[in-house]
């Protein structure tokens, strides 16, 4: 795996050395490292010639640009009204019990972070969750559990 510095350089090279590249660069770091470390934010500031506070300002605005350490797999269960009506609480509780973490926490082995999210755009097929970029609609607690177990097996 690349060092953070090398990764930032590569992303800046690919997206261009302008302010307009800030989002894709930050998104690229999160893709690889699951969150934006202080080191990463400082590297980006240096490479794009921006104030570090400016970079942090942008990063801290967006839900998907985490500035605290996250697990390799980030689970986001939709909590908005129709998913709520279709039983998102059961899904959250089931995953919370299985992973032994509360919402907002990361497992000790750093494999999973459990989060809730605002409307994911699957209101007709709720409850729904995202794991990283993948979407899993029409969940039951059993189904959610099986999906997460698959991820547990394939994550090292």
């Amino acid at each position, binding site marked *: 795996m690349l060092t953070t510095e090398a990764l930032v350089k590569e992303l800046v090279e690919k997206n261009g050395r302008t*302010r307009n590249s800030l989002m894709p660069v930050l998104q690229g770091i999160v893709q690889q490292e699951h969150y934006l470390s202080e080191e990463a934010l400082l590297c980006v500031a240096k490479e794009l010639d921006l104030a570090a506070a400016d970079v942090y300002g942008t990063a801290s605005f*967006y839900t998907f*640009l985490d500035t605290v350490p996250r697990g390799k797999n980030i689970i986001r269960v939709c909590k908005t*009204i*129709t998913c709520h009506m279709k039983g998102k609480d059961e899904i959250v509780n089931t995953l919370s019990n299985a992973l032994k973490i509360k919402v907002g926490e990361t497992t000790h082995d750093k494999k999973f972070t459990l989060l809730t999210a605002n*409307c994911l*755009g699957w209101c*007709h097929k709720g409850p729904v969750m995202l794991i990283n970029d993948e979407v899993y609609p029409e969940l039951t607690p059993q189904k959610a559990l099986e999906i997460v177990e698959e991820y547990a097996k394939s994550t090292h």
Partner: protein
Amino acid sequence: MENNLKKVDIIFEVDDKCTPLEVLDKTLKRSADDIILDLIDSGLKGRGGAGFPTGLKWKFTRNESGDVKYVICNADEGEPGTFKDREILDRVPEKIFAGMTICGYVVGAKEGYIYLRGEYNFLLKNLMKKLEDFNNALKKRNIDFRIFFKSGSGAYVCGEESALFESMEGKRGEPRNKPPYPTVAGYNSKPTVINNVETLVYTTMICHMGPERFKALGTSDSRGSKVFSVSGDTPIPGIYELELGMPLHEFVNEFGDGDTKAVQVGGASGHCVPRKKFNDTIIGFEGIPTGGSMMIFNSSRSMYNVLHDYLEFFTEESCGQCTPCRVGCQQLLKGIEAVKRGERPPAYLDDLKKLTGTMKIAAKCGLGQSVGNPFNSIIDNFREEIIY
């Protein structure tokens, strides 16, 4: 009961005899002014919710001087209860690309961007492939226009057009003051057309079938059809393209479960219509306009929970830039909780309604301005459920 609800198939229609690229070829032979006239004549208004006439938006941008202009497709679909843009992006992306290219030709733009919400990143793999083919087809035709993707990162407010530009420019997604409007100074402060996904598909289809067929649908205030996202207590949730201007009771007859108590029209930022008003509510610009979200609630649902859910949503998604919205959303949420617990008298709800009035006047963007829509319509129609 008689039901006149008219289902339409324009957005998702696949015509092998006339692909989006062929519509493009045909359309680019016409003058930009003729295309604008057709769009204005069709009566097409923006399908994202705000409903600005599309033809005028294109005309204003065309009339701006300057070599650099942009076309942006707003695919930051985040309104609770809305999922139609995802289906359109997944099923007929070429129609979106064609609409953007026609727009680029009309206004004189060489670059187009699709701002896709981060929650839809799973669509990208397939979309990138189709976009590459489309961009190559443009290159082969010597059409000087290219389309690119930009991803969002989970911020509802970025669906607000000026916040979307800020995000594309690498900044916090905080809405700008208007004017200037995007047609004058949008992305990179250049003249910009920003249209919803569905609007762009309709522009392609109006260029294909002519304004007459589109105009024949709907009412004089709400021309054409619209894709609705139907969810909640319905046996048949999903995507439906329907003629605009329908009475709500016909919609409920078709989609309700026989026990419908209320319909939230237009998502969390829209209006809640109770059963007693189904008969005299029209879905369209003359009644209640909507970006397509139709959430159905039956009598087993607590409207307190519904409102609480919406207010939590707005409290989290308010960008925090302006005080009326940042503090207002928090206080509305705390306020209904206090009334529910009996710590505040029921009359406190009227003070909170006044607060939404202040937010409507003083908030900087549509987010804070529209929180009063769900708040007042739920408080007015289901007051007893909020108090007890």
